[in-house]
Protein backbone atom coordinates (compact mmCIF):
# COMPACT_ATOMS: atom_id res chain seq x y z
CA UNK A 1 0.00 0.00 0.00
CA UNK A 2 1.39 3.41 -0.98
CA UNK A 3 0.50 6.34 1.30
CA UNK A 4 -0.73 9.35 -0.61
CA UNK A 5 1.81 11.97 -1.49
CA UNK A 6 0.49 14.85 0.63
CA UNK A 7 0.84 12.87 3.85
CA UNK A 8 4.45 12.07 2.87
CA UNK A 9 5.10 15.77 2.35
CA UNK A 10 3.42 16.74 5.63
CA UNK A 11 5.45 14.21 7.58
CA UNK A 12 8.53 15.43 5.73
CA UNK A 13 7.86 19.02 6.82
CA UNK A 14 7.21 18.01 10.41
CA UNK A 15 10.26 15.73 10.34
CA UNK A 16 12.47 18.62 9.19
CA UNK A 17 11.07 20.77 12.01
CA UNK A 18 11.72 18.06 14.59
CA UNK A 19 15.27 17.54 13.31
CA UNK A 20 15.87 21.28 13.40
CA UNK A 21 14.49 21.87 16.89
CA UNK A 22 16.29 18.77 18.16
CA UNK A 23 19.53 20.06 16.70
CA UNK A 24 18.95 23.45 18.31
CA UNK A 25 18.49 21.85 21.71
CA UNK A 26 21.19 19.19 21.48
CA UNK A 27 24.12 20.60 19.54
CA UNK A 28 26.87 22.35 21.38
CA UNK A 29 28.64 24.01 18.49
CA UNK A 30 27.52 27.49 17.41
CA UNK A 31 27.80 26.63 13.72
CA UNK A 32 25.75 23.47 14.12
CA UNK A 33 23.09 25.45 15.98
CA UNK A 34 22.88 27.71 12.94
CA UNK A 35 22.59 24.72 10.59
CA UNK A 36 19.82 23.27 12.75
CA UNK A 37 18.03 26.60 12.42
CA UNK A 38 18.32 26.40 8.62
CA UNK A 39 16.77 22.91 8.65
CA UNK A 40 13.89 23.99 10.91
CA UNK A 41 13.21 26.96 8.65
CA UNK A 42 13.11 24.68 5.61
CA UNK A 43 10.47 22.60 7.43
CA UNK A 44 8.31 25.65 8.15
CA UNK A 45 8.63 26.85 4.55
CA UNK A 46 7.66 23.44 3.18
CA UNK A 47 4.62 23.50 5.46
CA UNK A 48 3.57 26.87 4.05
CA UNK A 49 3.92 25.62 0.45
CA UNK A 50 1.85 22.52 1.13
CA UNK A 51 -0.84 24.69 2.76
CA UNK A 52 -1.76 26.18 -0.61
CA UNK A 53 -1.04 23.28 -2.96
CA UNK A 54 -3.64 21.32 -4.94
CA UNK A 55 -2.82 18.07 -6.67
CA UNK A 56 -5.49 18.35 -9.39
CA UNK A 57 -4.53 21.84 -10.52
CA UNK A 58 -2.23 23.67 -12.88
CA UNK A 59 0.36 26.38 -12.32
CA UNK A 60 -1.31 29.80 -11.94
CA UNK A 61 0.01 31.26 -15.20
CA UNK A 62 -2.40 32.82 -17.68
CA UNK A 63 -1.62 31.88 -21.28
CA UNK A 64 -3.34 32.92 -24.50
CA UNK A 65 -5.83 30.06 -24.71
CA UNK A 66 -7.19 30.36 -21.21
CA UNK A 67 -9.78 27.84 -20.12
CA UNK A 68 -11.09 28.11 -16.56
CA UNK A 69 -9.73 25.24 -14.48
CA UNK A 70 -8.43 24.80 -10.93
CA UNK A 71 -5.15 26.57 -10.23
CA UNK A 72 -2.59 26.22 -7.46
CA UNK A 73 -2.82 29.06 -4.95
CA UNK A 74 0.15 31.32 -5.76
CA UNK A 75 0.01 33.37 -2.54
CA UNK A 76 1.80 30.89 -0.21
CA UNK A 77 4.53 30.39 -2.82
CA UNK A 78 5.15 34.13 -2.95
CA UNK A 79 5.18 34.21 0.86
CA UNK A 80 7.64 31.33 1.06
CA UNK A 81 9.91 33.18 -1.34
CA UNK A 82 9.84 36.17 1.03
CA UNK A 83 10.44 33.94 4.03
CA UNK A 84 13.42 32.25 2.33
CA UNK A 85 15.00 35.61 1.53
CA UNK A 86 14.51 36.82 5.10
CA UNK A 87 15.96 33.55 6.36
CA UNK A 88 19.08 33.88 4.21
CA UNK A 89 19.62 37.42 5.48
CA UNK A 90 19.30 36.40 9.11
CA UNK A 91 21.63 33.42 8.57
CA UNK A 92 24.29 35.64 7.02
CA UNK A 93 24.03 37.99 9.99
CA UNK A 94 24.30 35.02 12.35
CA UNK A 95 27.47 33.88 10.58
CA UNK A 96 29.09 37.29 11.01
CA UNK A 97 28.19 37.24 14.69
CA UNK A 98 29.68 33.74 15.00
CA UNK A 99 32.92 35.06 13.47
CA UNK A 100 33.01 37.95 15.96
CA UNK A 101 32.33 35.59 18.87
CA UNK A 102 35.09 33.26 17.69
CA UNK A 103 37.51 36.22 17.45
CA UNK A 104 36.56 37.41 20.91
CA UNK A 105 36.49 34.11 22.82
CA UNK A 106 38.38 31.71 20.55
CA UNK A 107 35.76 28.98 20.84
CA UNK A 108 32.50 27.88 19.21
CA UNK A 109 31.36 25.77 22.14
CA UNK A 110 28.01 27.21 23.28
CA UNK A 111 28.55 26.25 26.94
CA UNK A 112 31.99 27.83 26.91
CA UNK A 113 30.64 30.97 25.18
CA UNK A 114 27.94 31.32 27.82
CA UNK A 115 30.50 30.89 30.62
CA UNK A 116 32.83 33.50 29.12
CA UNK A 117 29.91 35.86 28.57
CA UNK A 118 28.80 35.59 32.20
CA UNK A 119 32.40 36.23 33.31
CA UNK A 120 32.47 39.32 31.10
CA UNK A 121 29.20 40.53 32.60
CA UNK A 122 30.58 40.12 36.12
CA UNK A 123 33.68 42.07 35.14
CA UNK A 124 31.66 44.82 33.46
CA UNK A 125 29.35 45.01 36.44
CA UNK A 126 32.32 45.50 38.78
CA UNK A 127 34.01 48.02 36.53
CA UNK A 128 30.85 49.98 35.75
CA UNK A 129 31.01 52.13 38.86
CA UNK A 130 34.76 52.30 39.31
CA UNK A 131 36.32 55.75 39.16
CA UNK A 132 38.41 56.54 36.11
CA UNK A 133 36.01 54.74 33.82
CA UNK A 134 36.06 55.98 30.24
CA UNK A 135 33.46 58.58 29.28
CA UNK A 136 30.03 57.76 28.05
CA UNK A 137 29.47 55.10 25.44
CA UNK A 138 25.73 55.45 25.05
Amino acid at each position, binding site marked *: MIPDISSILFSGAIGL*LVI*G*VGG*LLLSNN*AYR*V*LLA*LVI*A*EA*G*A*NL*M*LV*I*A*GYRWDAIAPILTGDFTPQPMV*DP*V*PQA*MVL*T*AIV*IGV*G*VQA*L*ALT*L*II*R*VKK*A*YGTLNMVE*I*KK*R*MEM*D*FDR*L*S*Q*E*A*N*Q*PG*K*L*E*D*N*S
Partner: protein
Amino acid sequence: MKHYIILTVILPLLVAFLLPTIGRFSYFLARALPPIILIFSIVITACVYNNETAPFALHIGDFVAPQGIVFHVDSISLLMALSVQVFALFLWPRRSFKLQSEQIVSNKRYSLMLLLVASANGLAFSGDLFNLYVFYELLAVATFGLISFDTNEANQARFAAAFRYLVISATGSVMALLGIALVYFLTGTLNFAHLATQQANLFNPIGLSAFALLLVGFGVKAELFPVNSWVPEVYSAASKKLSGYLAGVISKLAVLVIIKALLFIFPHSEAAYLMLGLGLAGLLIGELSAMRSNDFTRMISWSSVAQLGLVFIAFSIPGQAGIIAGLAVLFHHMFVKTALFLIAEKWGGRISDLHGQGYLNLIMSGIFIFVALSLIGLPPLPGFWSKFLLLNGLAGQEYYFAIAIILITTVIEVNYLFRVANHLFSREDKPVLPINNHHWFDTLTASLIVVALIVAVWELPTINDQLIIMSDQLLDIESYVNRVLISTENGL
Protein backbone atom coordinates in the same frame (compact mmCIF):
# COMPACT_ATOMS: atom_id res chain seq x y z
CA MET B 1 -4.78 63.84 5.52
CA LYS B 2 -5.10 60.29 6.67
CA HIS B 3 -3.12 58.89 3.75
CA TYR B 4 -0.04 60.61 5.09
CA ILE B 5 0.13 58.02 7.87
CA ILE B 6 1.91 55.72 5.40
CA LEU B 7 4.81 58.20 5.41
CA THR B 8 5.60 57.25 9.01
CA VAL B 9 6.70 53.85 7.68
CA ILE B 10 8.10 54.89 4.31
CA LEU B 11 10.16 57.94 5.29
CA PRO B 12 12.27 56.31 8.05
CA LEU B 13 12.87 53.31 5.76
CA LEU B 14 13.96 55.53 2.87
CA VAL B 15 16.25 57.69 4.99
CA ALA B 16 17.68 54.62 6.73
CA PHE B 17 18.95 53.26 3.42
CA LEU B 18 20.08 56.67 2.12
CA LEU B 19 21.95 57.59 5.29
CA PRO B 20 25.24 55.71 4.59
CA THR B 21 25.50 57.53 1.25
CA ILE B 22 24.56 60.91 2.71
CA GLY B 23 27.13 60.37 5.46
CA ARG B 24 29.92 60.19 2.87
CA PHE B 25 29.19 63.73 1.70
CA SER B 26 28.15 65.51 4.84
CA TYR B 27 28.43 64.14 8.32
CA PHE B 28 26.37 67.03 9.65
CA LEU B 29 23.43 66.21 7.35
CA ALA B 30 23.58 62.54 8.33
CA ARG B 31 23.38 63.55 11.98
CA ALA B 32 20.60 66.08 11.55
CA LEU B 33 18.33 64.25 9.12
CA PRO B 34 17.05 61.33 11.25
CA PRO B 35 15.71 63.50 14.12
CA ILE B 36 14.06 65.81 11.57
CA ILE B 37 12.37 62.80 9.94
CA LEU B 38 11.26 61.57 13.34
CA ILE B 39 9.78 64.95 14.28
CA PHE B 40 8.02 65.10 10.92
CA SER B 41 6.40 61.70 11.40
CA ILE B 42 5.48 62.60 14.99
CA VAL B 43 3.64 65.64 13.62
CA ILE B 44 1.86 63.49 11.02
CA THR B 45 0.80 60.91 13.60
CA ALA B 46 -0.37 63.56 16.04
CA CYS B 47 -2.40 65.35 13.33
CA VAL B 48 -4.10 62.12 12.28
CA TYR B 49 -4.74 61.32 15.93
CA ASN B 50 -6.42 64.68 16.41
CA ASN B 51 -8.34 65.02 13.17
CA GLU B 52 -9.66 61.58 12.33
CA THR B 53 -11.42 60.42 15.43
CA ALA B 54 -12.95 57.42 13.73
CA PRO B 55 -10.65 54.48 12.95
CA PHE B 56 -10.08 53.84 9.26
CA ALA B 57 -8.50 51.32 6.91
CA LEU B 58 -6.05 52.15 4.13
CA HIS B 59 -5.94 49.87 1.11
CA ILE B 60 -2.46 50.29 -0.26
CA GLY B 61 -2.38 50.58 -4.04
CA ASP B 62 -6.21 50.47 -4.08
CA PHE B 63 -6.30 46.69 -4.17
CA VAL B 64 -9.44 45.32 -2.55
CA ALA B 65 -8.91 44.01 0.95
CA PRO B 66 -8.26 40.27 1.06
CA GLN B 67 -5.94 40.52 -1.95
CA GLY B 68 -4.11 43.75 -1.21
CA ILE B 69 -2.16 44.97 1.78
CA VAL B 70 -4.17 46.81 4.40
CA PHE B 71 -3.12 49.29 7.06
CA HIS B 72 -5.70 49.48 9.82
CA VAL B 73 -5.33 52.69 11.82
CA ASP B 74 -7.20 53.05 15.11
CA SER B 75 -6.44 55.04 18.23
CA ILE B 76 -4.42 52.29 19.93
CA SER B 77 -2.15 51.80 16.93
CA LEU B 78 -1.76 55.58 16.51
CA LEU B 79 -0.83 55.91 20.17
CA MET B 80 1.69 53.05 19.88
CA ALA B 81 3.24 54.62 16.77
CA LEU B 82 3.38 57.98 18.52
CA SER B 83 5.18 56.50 21.53
CA VAL B 84 7.58 54.59 19.25
CA GLN B 85 8.62 57.84 17.57
CA VAL B 86 8.66 60.07 20.66
CA PHE B 87 10.68 57.60 22.72
CA ALA B 88 13.06 57.05 19.79
CA LEU B 89 13.65 60.80 19.65
CA PHE B 90 14.40 61.02 23.38
CA LEU B 91 16.51 57.83 23.45
CA TRP B 92 18.38 58.66 20.24
CA PRO B 93 22.00 57.43 20.40
CA ARG B 94 24.33 60.28 21.23
CA ARG B 95 27.39 61.12 19.21
CA SER B 96 30.26 59.43 21.00
CA PHE B 97 33.25 59.39 18.69
CA LYS B 98 36.70 60.80 18.70
CA LEU B 99 37.96 59.19 15.50
CA GLN B 100 36.94 59.46 11.86
CA SER B 101 36.11 55.75 11.67
CA GLU B 102 33.66 56.07 14.54
CA GLN B 103 31.65 58.61 12.54
CA ILE B 104 30.82 55.87 10.05
CA VAL B 105 29.87 53.55 12.90
CA SER B 106 27.47 56.09 14.35
CA ASN B 107 25.96 56.67 10.90
CA LYS B 108 25.21 52.96 10.68
CA ARG B 109 23.73 53.14 14.14
CA TYR B 110 21.38 55.94 13.08
CA SER B 111 20.33 53.87 10.03
CA LEU B 112 19.50 50.89 12.22
CA MET B 113 17.53 53.06 14.66
CA LEU B 114 15.46 54.40 11.76
CA LEU B 115 14.87 50.84 10.53
CA LEU B 116 13.72 49.95 14.03
CA VAL B 117 11.27 52.88 14.08
CA ALA B 118 9.94 52.14 10.59
CA SER B 119 9.33 48.46 11.28
CA ALA B 120 7.77 49.24 14.67
CA ASN B 121 5.34 51.66 12.99
CA GLY B 122 4.58 48.95 10.44
CA LEU B 123 3.86 46.49 13.26
CA ALA B 124 1.45 48.98 14.81
CA PHE B 125 -0.56 49.62 11.65
CA SER B 126 -0.42 46.45 9.56
CA GLY B 127 -3.63 44.49 9.15
CA ASP B 128 -2.20 41.35 7.60
CA LEU B 129 -0.49 38.48 9.38
CA PHE B 130 2.28 37.92 6.84
CA ASN B 131 2.99 41.62 6.58
CA LEU B 132 3.35 41.65 10.35
CA TYR B 133 5.82 38.77 10.11
CA VAL B 134 7.97 40.69 7.60
CA PHE B 135 7.99 43.85 9.74
CA TYR B 136 8.79 41.71 12.78
CA GLU B 137 11.82 40.18 11.07
CA LEU B 138 13.00 43.62 9.94
CA LEU B 139 12.72 44.80 13.52
CA ALA B 140 14.65 41.77 14.76
CA VAL B 141 17.52 42.30 12.30
CA ALA B 142 17.79 46.00 13.25
CA THR B 143 17.93 45.01 16.93
CA PHE B 144 20.74 42.45 16.41
CA GLY B 145 22.82 45.12 14.71
CA LEU B 146 22.18 47.72 17.39
CA ILE B 147 23.02 45.33 20.23
CA SER B 148 26.42 44.53 18.76
CA PHE B 149 27.41 48.23 18.54
CA ASP B 150 29.41 49.55 21.44
CA THR B 151 32.27 51.99 21.57
CA ASN B 152 33.64 50.21 24.64
CA GLU B 153 35.97 47.66 23.02
CA ALA B 154 36.35 45.77 26.30
CA ASN B 155 32.71 44.74 26.10
CA GLN B 156 33.17 41.53 24.08
CA ALA B 157 30.07 39.99 25.62
CA ARG B 158 27.85 41.94 23.24
CA PHE B 159 28.60 39.61 20.30
CA ALA B 160 27.85 36.50 22.34
CA ALA B 161 24.66 38.09 23.70
CA ALA B 162 23.57 39.16 20.20
CA PHE B 163 24.23 35.67 18.80
CA ARG B 164 22.36 33.90 21.59
CA TYR B 165 19.49 36.36 21.13
CA LEU B 166 19.52 35.74 17.38
CA VAL B 167 19.19 31.98 17.87
CA ILE B 168 16.18 32.39 20.19
CA SER B 169 14.60 35.02 17.97
CA ALA B 170 15.08 33.01 14.76
CA THR B 171 13.60 29.93 16.45
CA GLY B 172 10.63 32.09 17.41
CA SER B 173 10.31 33.24 13.81
CA VAL B 174 10.23 29.63 12.62
CA MET B 175 7.44 28.96 15.13
CA ALA B 176 5.52 32.05 13.97
CA LEU B 177 5.93 31.00 10.34
CA LEU B 178 4.61 27.55 11.17
CA GLY B 179 1.64 29.17 12.92
CA ILE B 180 1.02 31.31 9.84
CA ALA B 181 1.14 28.18 7.66
CA LEU B 182 -1.44 26.47 9.87
CA VAL B 183 -3.73 29.52 9.80
CA TYR B 184 -3.44 29.66 6.01
CA PHE B 185 -4.09 25.92 5.79
CA LEU B 186 -7.32 26.30 7.77
CA THR B 187 -8.71 29.47 6.21
CA GLY B 188 -6.86 30.32 2.99
CA THR B 189 -6.29 33.92 4.08
CA LEU B 190 -4.01 35.94 6.33
CA ASN B 191 -5.90 39.24 6.39
CA PHE B 192 -7.15 39.85 9.95
CA ALA B 193 -10.58 41.06 8.84
CA HIS B 194 -10.99 38.10 6.50
CA LEU B 195 -9.82 35.75 9.27
CA ALA B 196 -12.44 37.21 11.63
CA THR B 197 -15.18 36.17 9.19
CA GLN B 198 -13.86 32.60 9.15
CA GLN B 199 -13.53 31.97 12.85
CA ALA B 200 -15.66 28.83 12.63
CA ASN B 201 -12.84 27.18 10.63
CA LEU B 202 -10.30 28.13 13.26
CA PHE B 203 -12.13 26.88 16.35
CA ASN B 204 -10.45 23.47 16.58
CA PRO B 205 -7.23 22.01 18.03
CA ILE B 206 -5.25 23.01 14.92
CA GLY B 207 -6.42 26.59 15.35
CA LEU B 208 -5.37 26.52 19.00
CA SER B 209 -1.93 25.17 18.13
CA ALA B 210 -1.60 27.86 15.45
CA PHE B 211 -2.34 30.47 18.10
CA ALA B 212 0.11 28.85 20.52
CA LEU B 213 2.84 28.90 17.85
CA LEU B 214 2.15 32.56 17.08
CA LEU B 215 2.15 33.33 20.81
CA VAL B 216 5.57 31.73 21.34
CA GLY B 217 6.93 33.12 18.07
CA PHE B 218 5.97 36.76 18.58
CA GLY B 219 6.40 36.32 22.34
CA VAL B 220 10.19 36.34 21.97
CA LYS B 221 10.20 40.12 21.65
CA ALA B 222 7.42 40.43 24.23
CA GLU B 223 9.62 38.66 26.82
CA LEU B 224 7.08 35.85 27.24
CA PHE B 225 8.02 33.15 29.75
CA PRO B 226 9.63 30.20 27.93
CA VAL B 227 11.53 32.38 25.41
CA ASN B 228 12.85 35.18 27.62
CA SER B 229 16.31 33.94 28.60
CA TRP B 230 17.84 36.55 26.29
CA VAL B 231 16.46 39.46 28.31
CA PRO B 232 19.10 39.94 31.06
CA GLU B 233 21.98 39.09 28.70
CA VAL B 234 21.00 41.54 25.98
CA TYR B 235 20.11 44.36 28.35
CA SER B 236 23.42 43.96 30.19
CA ALA B 237 25.43 43.91 26.96
CA ALA B 238 23.69 46.62 24.93
CA SER B 239 23.76 50.33 25.64
CA LYS B 240 21.28 51.20 28.36
CA LYS B 241 19.25 53.61 26.25
CA LEU B 242 18.73 50.91 23.63
CA SER B 243 17.75 48.47 26.39
CA GLY B 244 15.26 51.01 27.69
CA TYR B 245 13.80 51.37 24.22
CA LEU B 246 13.56 47.60 23.68
CA ALA B 247 12.09 46.89 27.11
CA GLY B 248 9.86 49.94 27.20
CA VAL B 249 8.44 50.30 23.72
CA ILE B 250 9.36 47.50 21.31
CA SER B 251 8.19 44.70 23.62
CA LYS B 252 4.77 46.43 23.79
CA LEU B 253 4.40 46.23 20.01
CA ALA B 254 4.95 42.48 20.14
CA VAL B 255 2.25 42.34 22.83
CA LEU B 256 -0.06 44.27 20.50
CA VAL B 257 0.55 41.72 17.72
CA ILE B 258 -0.29 38.89 20.11
CA ILE B 259 -3.49 40.66 21.19
CA LYS B 260 -4.50 40.98 17.54
CA ALA B 261 -3.85 37.26 17.07
CA LEU B 262 -5.94 36.52 20.17
CA LEU B 263 -8.88 38.66 19.06
CA PHE B 264 -8.97 37.71 15.38
CA ILE B 265 -7.67 34.15 15.26
CA PHE B 266 -8.63 32.36 18.44
CA PRO B 267 -10.84 34.42 20.80
CA HIS B 268 -11.67 31.50 23.09
CA SER B 269 -10.97 30.71 26.71
CA GLU B 270 -8.30 28.05 25.96
CA ALA B 271 -6.04 30.70 24.42
CA ALA B 272 -6.68 33.04 27.36
CA TYR B 273 -5.75 30.30 29.84
CA LEU B 274 -2.53 29.68 27.92
CA MET B 275 -1.65 33.36 28.19
CA LEU B 276 -2.61 33.44 31.85
CA GLY B 277 -0.38 30.46 32.67
CA LEU B 278 2.65 31.75 30.76
CA GLY B 279 2.12 35.25 32.20
CA LEU B 280 2.03 33.92 35.76
CA ALA B 281 5.17 31.86 35.18
CA GLY B 282 6.93 34.90 33.72
CA LEU B 283 5.82 37.07 36.65
CA LEU B 284 7.09 34.62 39.28
CA ILE B 285 10.40 33.88 37.55
CA GLY B 286 11.03 37.54 36.75
CA GLU B 287 10.43 38.81 40.28
CA LEU B 288 12.37 35.99 41.96
CA SER B 289 15.36 36.44 39.63
CA ALA B 290 15.24 40.21 40.13
CA MET B 291 15.38 39.67 43.89
CA ARG B 292 18.44 37.46 43.55
CA SER B 293 20.46 39.71 41.25
CA ASN B 294 23.21 41.97 42.56
CA ASP B 295 23.54 44.05 39.44
CA PHE B 296 21.25 47.04 38.85
CA THR B 297 20.79 46.46 35.10
CA ARG B 298 20.13 42.78 35.60
CA MET B 299 17.61 43.54 38.33
CA ILE B 300 15.54 45.89 36.18
CA SER B 301 15.79 43.51 33.19
CA TRP B 302 14.21 40.72 35.23
CA SER B 303 11.67 43.16 36.62
CA SER B 304 10.69 44.01 33.04
CA VAL B 305 10.10 40.28 32.37
CA ALA B 306 7.82 40.25 35.41
CA GLN B 307 5.93 43.36 34.30
CA LEU B 308 5.29 41.88 30.86
CA GLY B 309 4.00 38.79 32.65
CA LEU B 310 1.50 41.15 34.32
CA VAL B 311 0.52 42.52 30.91
CA PHE B 312 -0.18 39.00 29.62
CA ILE B 313 -2.19 38.15 32.75
CA ALA B 314 -4.25 41.31 32.22
CA PHE B 315 -5.00 40.57 28.56
CA SER B 316 -6.06 37.02 29.44
CA ILE B 317 -9.10 38.41 31.30
CA PRO B 318 -11.97 38.05 28.83
CA GLY B 319 -13.96 41.07 27.71
CA GLN B 320 -13.46 44.79 28.03
CA ALA B 321 -12.14 44.75 31.62
CA GLY B 322 -9.14 42.72 30.48
CA ILE B 323 -8.30 45.00 27.55
CA ILE B 324 -8.54 48.16 29.69
CA ALA B 325 -6.41 46.69 32.49
CA GLY B 326 -3.88 45.38 29.96
CA LEU B 327 -3.55 48.73 28.22
CA ALA B 328 -3.19 50.54 31.56
CA VAL B 329 -0.40 48.20 32.76
CA LEU B 330 1.24 48.35 29.33
CA PHE B 331 1.43 52.16 29.06
CA HIS B 332 2.44 52.56 32.70
CA HIS B 333 5.29 50.10 32.26
CA MET B 334 6.39 51.85 29.05
CA PHE B 335 7.15 55.05 30.97
CA VAL B 336 8.47 53.51 34.16
CA LYS B 337 10.90 51.04 32.57
CA THR B 338 12.36 53.66 30.24
CA ALA B 339 13.07 55.90 33.24
CA LEU B 340 14.69 53.00 35.13
CA PHE B 341 17.01 52.18 32.20
CA LEU B 342 17.96 55.86 31.90
CA ILE B 343 18.98 55.71 35.56
CA ALA B 344 20.96 52.53 34.84
CA GLU B 345 22.96 54.46 32.24
CA LYS B 346 25.42 55.44 34.97
CA TRP B 347 24.33 53.29 37.89
CA GLY B 348 24.32 50.03 35.94
CA GLY B 349 26.92 48.18 38.02
CA ARG B 350 26.75 46.38 41.33
CA ILE B 351 24.00 47.60 43.64
CA SER B 352 26.36 47.62 46.63
CA ASP B 353 28.56 50.15 44.80
CA LEU B 354 25.72 52.66 44.89
CA HIS B 355 25.87 53.32 48.63
CA GLY B 356 25.68 57.02 49.44
CA GLN B 357 25.03 58.05 45.83
CA GLY B 358 21.64 59.46 46.82
CA TYR B 359 23.26 62.38 48.63
CA LEU B 360 25.46 63.17 45.61
CA ASN B 361 22.80 62.98 42.91
CA LEU B 362 19.52 63.98 44.51
CA ILE B 363 17.59 64.41 41.24
CA MET B 364 18.25 60.93 39.87
CA SER B 365 17.72 59.20 43.20
CA GLY B 366 14.48 61.14 43.65
CA ILE B 367 13.37 59.99 40.20
CA PHE B 368 14.32 56.43 41.07
CA ILE B 369 12.28 56.43 44.26
CA PHE B 370 9.25 58.03 42.59
CA VAL B 371 9.33 55.55 39.70
CA ALA B 372 9.87 52.61 42.05
CA LEU B 373 6.87 53.66 44.14
CA SER B 374 4.74 53.88 41.01
CA LEU B 375 5.96 50.46 39.83
CA ILE B 376 5.01 48.93 43.17
CA GLY B 377 1.63 50.68 43.09
CA LEU B 378 1.47 53.21 45.92
CA PRO B 379 -2.09 54.64 45.93
CA PRO B 380 -2.07 58.09 44.35
CA LEU B 381 0.33 57.10 41.58
CA PRO B 382 -0.74 55.67 38.17
CA GLY B 383 0.87 52.32 38.97
CA PHE B 384 -1.66 51.77 41.74
CA TRP B 385 -4.52 52.48 39.38
CA SER B 386 -3.25 50.05 36.71
CA LYS B 387 -2.69 47.30 39.27
CA PHE B 388 -6.12 48.00 40.77
CA LEU B 389 -7.79 47.61 37.37
CA LEU B 390 -5.90 44.35 36.89
CA LEU B 391 -6.84 42.91 40.29
CA ASN B 392 -10.42 44.08 39.84
CA GLY B 393 -10.65 42.29 36.50
CA LEU B 394 -9.13 39.12 37.94
CA ALA B 395 -11.56 39.22 40.88
CA GLY B 396 -14.44 39.55 38.39
CA GLN B 397 -13.33 36.26 36.82
CA GLU B 398 -12.64 34.68 40.25
CA TYR B 399 -9.01 34.00 39.36
CA TYR B 400 -8.03 34.15 43.05
CA PHE B 401 -4.85 32.16 42.48
CA ALA B 402 -3.54 34.82 40.11
CA ILE B 403 -4.47 37.59 42.56
CA ALA B 404 -2.51 35.84 45.32
CA ILE B 405 0.56 35.50 43.11
CA ILE B 406 0.39 39.16 42.03
CA LEU B 407 0.14 40.37 45.63
CA ILE B 408 3.01 38.13 46.78
CA THR B 409 5.23 39.27 43.91
CA THR B 410 4.42 42.89 44.77
CA VAL B 411 6.01 42.27 48.16
CA ILE B 412 9.10 40.85 46.42
CA GLU B 413 9.14 43.94 44.20
CA VAL B 414 9.15 46.19 47.28
CA ASN B 415 12.02 44.15 48.66
CA TYR B 416 14.40 44.52 45.74
CA LEU B 417 13.53 48.08 44.73
CA PHE B 418 13.95 49.38 48.26
CA ARG B 419 17.18 47.48 48.72
CA VAL B 420 18.53 49.85 46.05
CA ALA B 421 16.98 52.88 47.79
CA ASN B 422 18.57 51.68 51.02
CA HIS B 423 22.01 51.60 49.39
CA LEU B 424 21.46 55.00 47.80
CA PHE B 425 20.83 56.67 51.15
CA SER B 426 22.98 54.45 53.33
CA ARG B 427 24.87 56.22 56.10
CA GLU B 428 27.53 53.52 56.21
CA ASP B 429 31.00 54.81 56.82
CA LYS B 430 32.44 53.81 53.46
CA PRO B 431 33.89 56.15 50.86
CA VAL B 432 31.27 57.13 48.28
CA LEU B 433 32.35 56.17 44.76
CA PRO B 434 32.78 59.19 42.49
CA ILE B 435 30.40 58.04 39.75
CA ASN B 436 29.94 60.44 36.85
CA ASN B 437 26.68 62.35 36.78
CA HIS B 438 24.09 61.41 34.21
CA HIS B 439 24.10 63.31 30.96
CA TRP B 440 21.81 66.35 31.25
CA PHE B 441 19.57 65.12 28.43
CA ASP B 442 18.98 61.76 30.16
CA THR B 443 18.15 63.58 33.39
CA LEU B 444 15.73 65.78 31.46
CA THR B 445 14.05 62.77 29.81
CA ALA B 446 13.69 60.94 33.11
CA SER B 447 12.26 64.09 34.75
CA LEU B 448 9.79 64.47 31.88
CA ILE B 449 8.65 60.89 32.49
CA VAL B 450 8.09 61.74 36.16
CA VAL B 451 6.13 64.86 35.15
CA ALA B 452 4.05 62.73 32.76
CA LEU B 453 3.26 60.28 35.59
CA ILE B 454 2.26 63.14 37.92
CA VAL B 455 0.05 64.69 35.23
CA ALA B 456 -1.50 61.26 34.70
CA VAL B 457 -2.63 61.28 38.34
CA TRP B 458 -4.70 64.44 37.73
CA GLU B 459 -5.91 63.32 34.32
CA LEU B 460 -7.00 59.80 35.37
CA PRO B 461 -10.67 60.28 34.30
CA THR B 462 -9.59 61.46 30.82
CA ILE B 463 -7.15 58.57 30.47
CA ASN B 464 -9.82 56.17 31.61
CA ASP B 465 -12.22 57.48 28.94
CA GLN B 466 -9.52 57.15 26.29
CA LEU B 467 -8.81 53.57 27.35
CA ILE B 468 -12.51 52.72 27.13
CA ILE B 469 -12.64 54.18 23.60
CA MET B 470 -9.55 52.19 22.59
CA SER B 471 -10.84 48.93 24.01
CA ASP B 472 -14.20 49.51 22.31
CA GLN B 473 -12.43 49.92 18.99
CA LEU B 474 -10.25 46.88 19.62
CA LEU B 475 -13.22 44.68 20.55
CA ASP B 476 -15.57 45.89 17.82
CA ILE B 477 -14.50 43.29 15.30
CA GLU B 478 -17.64 43.65 13.21
CA SER B 479 -16.94 47.24 12.21
CA TYR B 480 -13.24 46.37 11.76
CA VAL B 481 -14.31 43.80 9.17
CA ASN B 482 -16.66 46.30 7.53
CA ARG B 483 -13.99 48.96 7.32
CA VAL B 484 -11.40 46.64 5.82
CA LEU B 485 -13.46 44.43 3.53
CA ILE B 486 -16.29 46.65 2.36
CA SER B 487 -15.22 50.28 2.22
CA THR B 488 -13.02 50.78 -0.81
CA GLU B 489 -13.24 54.53 -1.16
CA ASN B 490 -10.34 54.86 1.27
CA GLY B 491 -7.83 53.61 -1.27
CA LEU B 492 -4.53 55.35 -1.62
